[in-house]
Protein backbone atom coordinates (compact mmCIF):
# COMPACT_ATOMS: atom_id res chain seq x y z
CA UNK A 1 0.00 0.00 0.00
CA UNK A 2 1.35 3.42 -0.98
CA UNK A 3 1.41 6.22 1.54
CA UNK A 4 2.58 9.80 2.05
CA UNK A 5 4.12 9.26 5.45
CA UNK A 6 7.65 10.15 4.42
CA UNK A 7 6.51 13.39 2.77
CA UNK A 8 4.33 14.38 5.72
CA UNK A 9 7.17 13.62 8.12
CA UNK A 10 9.63 15.65 6.06
CA UNK A 11 7.22 18.60 5.96
CA UNK A 12 7.40 18.73 9.74
CA UNK A 13 11.17 18.15 9.80
CA UNK A 14 10.71 15.04 11.93
CA UNK A 15 13.15 12.17 11.97
CA UNK A 16 11.86 8.59 11.83
CA UNK A 17 12.69 8.30 15.53
CA UNK A 18 10.62 11.41 16.27
CA UNK A 19 7.61 10.08 14.37
CA UNK A 20 8.05 6.64 15.92
CA UNK A 21 8.00 8.10 19.41
CA UNK A 22 4.90 10.16 18.68
CA UNK A 23 3.16 7.04 17.40
CA UNK A 24 4.54 4.84 20.18
CA UNK A 25 6.06 2.35 17.73
CA UNK A 26 9.65 1.44 16.85
CA UNK A 27 11.71 3.38 14.32
CA UNK A 28 11.87 0.17 12.26
CA UNK A 29 8.07 0.13 12.09
CA UNK A 30 8.01 3.68 10.71
CA UNK A 31 10.66 2.76 8.15
CA UNK A 32 8.73 -0.37 7.11
CA UNK A 33 5.51 1.62 6.69
CA UNK A 34 7.24 4.38 4.71
CA UNK A 35 8.82 1.87 2.34
CA UNK A 36 5.52 0.03 1.90
CA UNK A 37 6.84 -3.19 3.47
CA UNK A 38 4.37 -3.09 6.33
CA UNK A 39 0.74 -2.06 6.20
CA UNK A 40 -0.26 -0.55 9.53
CA UNK A 41 -3.17 -1.95 11.47
CA UNK A 42 -6.40 0.05 11.49
CA UNK A 43 -5.75 1.46 15.00
CA UNK A 44 -2.26 2.59 13.97
CA UNK A 45 -3.58 4.07 10.72
CA UNK A 46 -6.11 6.08 12.72
CA UNK A 47 -3.35 7.18 15.09
CA UNK A 48 -1.26 8.37 12.13
CA UNK A 49 -4.25 10.20 10.66
CA UNK A 50 -4.96 11.92 13.97
CA UNK A 51 -1.31 12.92 14.38
CA UNK A 52 -1.23 14.60 10.97
CA UNK A 53 -4.82 15.81 11.33
CA UNK A 54 -5.82 14.30 8.00
CA UNK A 55 -8.28 11.66 6.80
CA UNK A 56 -6.76 8.18 6.46
CA UNK A 57 -7.43 8.10 2.72
CA UNK A 58 -5.35 11.25 2.24
CA UNK A 59 -2.34 9.45 3.73
CA UNK A 60 -2.80 5.88 2.51
CA UNK A 61 -3.66 4.75 -0.99
CA UNK A 62 -4.58 1.13 -1.61
CA UNK A 63 -4.72 1.68 -5.38
CA UNK A 64 -8.45 0.95 -5.54
CA UNK A 65 -10.82 3.50 -7.01
CA UNK A 66 -14.21 4.09 -5.40
Amino acid at each position, binding site marked *: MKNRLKVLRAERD*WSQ*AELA*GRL*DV*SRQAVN*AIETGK*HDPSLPLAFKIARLFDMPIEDIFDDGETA
Partner: protein
Amino acid sequence: MILARKSVLGPGEARTRTRQRRQMIFLGVSVVIGGTIGGLTGAFDQGDGSLFSGDWDKLKLNPAIAVFVSALLVIGFIALPLRGFGQIDEFKRENNFIGFTGGCLAVLAGFPIWAVLYAGGMLPPPHAFGIWLLGFFGMFASYLIARIRA
Protein backbone atom coordinates in the same frame (compact mmCIF):
# COMPACT_ATOMS: atom_id res chain seq x y z
CA MET B 1 33.49 27.92 15.45
CA ILE B 2 32.10 24.70 16.71
CA LEU B 3 28.99 23.62 14.90
CA ALA B 4 26.00 23.49 17.17
CA ARG B 5 24.68 19.96 17.51
CA LYS B 6 21.02 19.23 17.81
CA SER B 7 21.02 18.59 21.53
CA VAL B 8 17.35 19.01 22.41
CA LEU B 9 15.38 15.90 21.62
CA GLY B 10 11.84 16.18 20.38
CA PRO B 11 9.19 14.43 22.49
CA GLY B 12 9.03 11.59 19.99
CA GLU B 13 12.79 11.07 19.87
CA ALA B 14 12.97 11.05 23.66
CA ARG B 15 10.26 8.40 23.77
CA THR B 16 12.07 6.37 21.10
CA ARG B 17 15.28 6.51 23.15
CA THR B 18 13.41 5.31 26.22
CA ARG B 19 11.99 2.44 24.16
CA GLN B 20 15.46 1.53 22.86
CA ARG B 21 16.93 1.69 26.37
CA ARG B 22 14.17 -0.60 27.65
CA GLN B 23 14.90 -3.06 24.85
CA MET B 24 18.62 -3.03 25.65
CA ILE B 25 17.87 -3.77 29.31
CA PHE B 26 15.53 -6.57 28.22
CA LEU B 27 18.25 -7.99 25.97
CA GLY B 28 20.84 -7.67 28.75
CA VAL B 29 18.63 -9.55 31.22
CA SER B 30 18.06 -12.29 28.61
CA VAL B 31 21.79 -12.65 28.03
CA VAL B 32 22.50 -12.81 31.78
CA ILE B 33 19.83 -15.49 32.29
CA GLY B 34 21.07 -17.48 29.28
CA GLY B 35 24.66 -17.20 30.47
CA THR B 36 23.70 -18.27 34.00
CA ILE B 37 21.87 -21.33 32.66
CA GLY B 38 24.83 -22.29 30.48
CA GLY B 39 27.36 -21.57 33.20
CA LEU B 40 25.52 -23.54 35.89
CA THR B 41 24.84 -26.58 33.74
CA GLY B 42 28.43 -26.53 32.50
CA ALA B 43 29.97 -26.08 35.96
CA PHE B 44 27.76 -28.55 37.86
CA ASP B 45 27.29 -31.24 35.21
CA GLN B 46 28.16 -34.51 36.94
CA GLY B 47 27.38 -37.01 34.21
CA ASP B 48 28.91 -38.16 30.94
CA GLY B 49 25.79 -37.70 28.86
CA SER B 50 25.29 -35.30 26.00
CA LEU B 51 22.10 -33.65 24.77
CA PHE B 52 23.36 -34.02 21.20
CA SER B 53 23.84 -37.80 21.32
CA GLY B 54 20.59 -38.40 23.22
CA ASP B 55 22.09 -40.58 25.98
CA TRP B 56 19.76 -39.23 28.65
CA ASP B 57 20.54 -41.87 31.25
CA LYS B 58 24.05 -40.47 31.61
CA LEU B 59 22.92 -36.90 32.29
CA LYS B 60 23.30 -35.94 35.95
CA LEU B 61 22.83 -32.67 37.80
CA ASN B 62 22.54 -31.76 41.48
CA PRO B 63 18.75 -31.63 42.27
CA ALA B 64 18.94 -28.13 43.77
CA ILE B 65 20.84 -26.84 40.72
CA ALA B 66 18.35 -28.61 38.45
CA VAL B 67 15.40 -26.90 40.15
CA PHE B 68 17.13 -23.52 40.00
CA VAL B 69 18.04 -23.92 36.33
CA SER B 70 14.52 -25.06 35.47
CA ALA B 71 13.18 -21.92 37.17
CA LEU B 72 15.56 -19.84 35.06
CA LEU B 73 14.36 -21.69 31.96
CA VAL B 74 10.76 -20.81 32.82
CA ILE B 75 11.82 -17.18 33.07
CA GLY B 76 13.94 -17.31 29.91
CA PHE B 77 11.57 -19.25 27.67
CA ILE B 78 8.15 -18.24 28.98
CA ALA B 79 8.12 -15.14 31.19
CA LEU B 80 10.57 -13.02 29.21
CA PRO B 81 9.07 -13.74 25.75
CA LEU B 82 5.56 -13.04 27.06
CA ARG B 83 6.77 -9.79 28.62
CA GLY B 84 8.57 -8.97 25.39
CA PHE B 85 5.42 -9.47 23.31
CA GLY B 86 3.71 -6.88 25.46
CA GLN B 87 6.42 -4.31 24.82
CA ILE B 88 6.99 -4.60 21.08
CA ASP B 89 4.91 -2.89 18.41
CA GLU B 90 2.75 -4.50 15.73
CA PHE B 91 5.56 -4.59 13.15
CA LYS B 92 7.95 -6.49 15.42
CA ARG B 93 5.11 -8.67 16.65
CA GLU B 94 4.39 -9.66 13.05
CA ASN B 95 8.05 -10.63 12.59
CA ASN B 96 7.87 -12.65 15.79
CA PHE B 97 4.76 -14.46 14.56
CA ILE B 98 6.61 -15.33 11.35
CA GLY B 99 9.50 -16.61 13.44
CA PHE B 100 7.29 -18.77 15.64
CA THR B 101 5.43 -20.09 12.60
CA GLY B 102 8.75 -21.04 11.02
CA GLY B 103 9.79 -22.85 14.21
CA CYS B 104 6.49 -24.69 14.40
CA LEU B 105 6.67 -25.78 10.74
CA ALA B 106 10.28 -26.89 11.20
CA VAL B 107 9.15 -29.28 13.94
CA LEU B 108 5.97 -30.45 12.18
CA ALA B 109 7.86 -31.22 8.98
CA GLY B 110 11.29 -31.90 10.48
CA PHE B 111 10.35 -34.84 12.68
CA PRO B 112 8.71 -37.02 9.99
CA ILE B 113 11.46 -36.14 7.50
CA TRP B 114 14.09 -37.11 10.06
CA ALA B 115 12.15 -40.32 10.85
CA VAL B 116 11.96 -41.47 7.23
CA LEU B 117 15.62 -40.60 6.64
CA TYR B 118 16.44 -42.67 9.73
CA ALA B 119 14.34 -45.51 8.35
CA GLY B 120 16.32 -45.21 5.14
CA GLY B 121 19.54 -45.56 7.08
CA MET B 122 20.78 -42.03 6.40
CA LEU B 123 20.46 -40.46 9.87
CA PRO B 124 20.58 -41.54 13.52
CA PRO B 125 17.15 -41.97 15.17
CA PRO B 126 15.28 -38.73 16.00
CA HIS B 127 15.78 -37.51 19.55
CA ALA B 128 14.18 -34.79 21.66
CA PHE B 129 17.06 -32.33 21.68
CA GLY B 130 17.45 -32.61 17.91
CA ILE B 131 13.76 -31.82 17.48
CA TRP B 132 14.14 -28.86 19.86
CA LEU B 133 17.09 -27.60 17.80
CA LEU B 134 15.01 -27.91 14.63
CA GLY B 135 12.33 -25.75 16.20
CA PHE B 136 14.81 -23.24 17.56
CA PHE B 137 16.78 -22.77 14.36
CA GLY B 138 13.62 -22.86 12.24
CA MET B 139 12.29 -20.02 14.36
CA PHE B 140 15.56 -18.10 14.27
CA ALA B 141 15.99 -18.43 10.50
CA SER B 142 12.37 -17.44 9.80
CA TYR B 143 12.69 -14.40 12.04
CA LEU B 144 15.92 -13.32 10.33
CA ILE B 145 14.39 -13.71 6.88
CA ALA B 146 11.36 -11.66 7.94
CA ARG B 147 13.60 -8.90 9.31
CA ILE B 148 15.81 -8.85 6.21
CA ARG B 149 12.82 -8.66 3.87
CA ALA B 150 11.19 -5.83 5.84
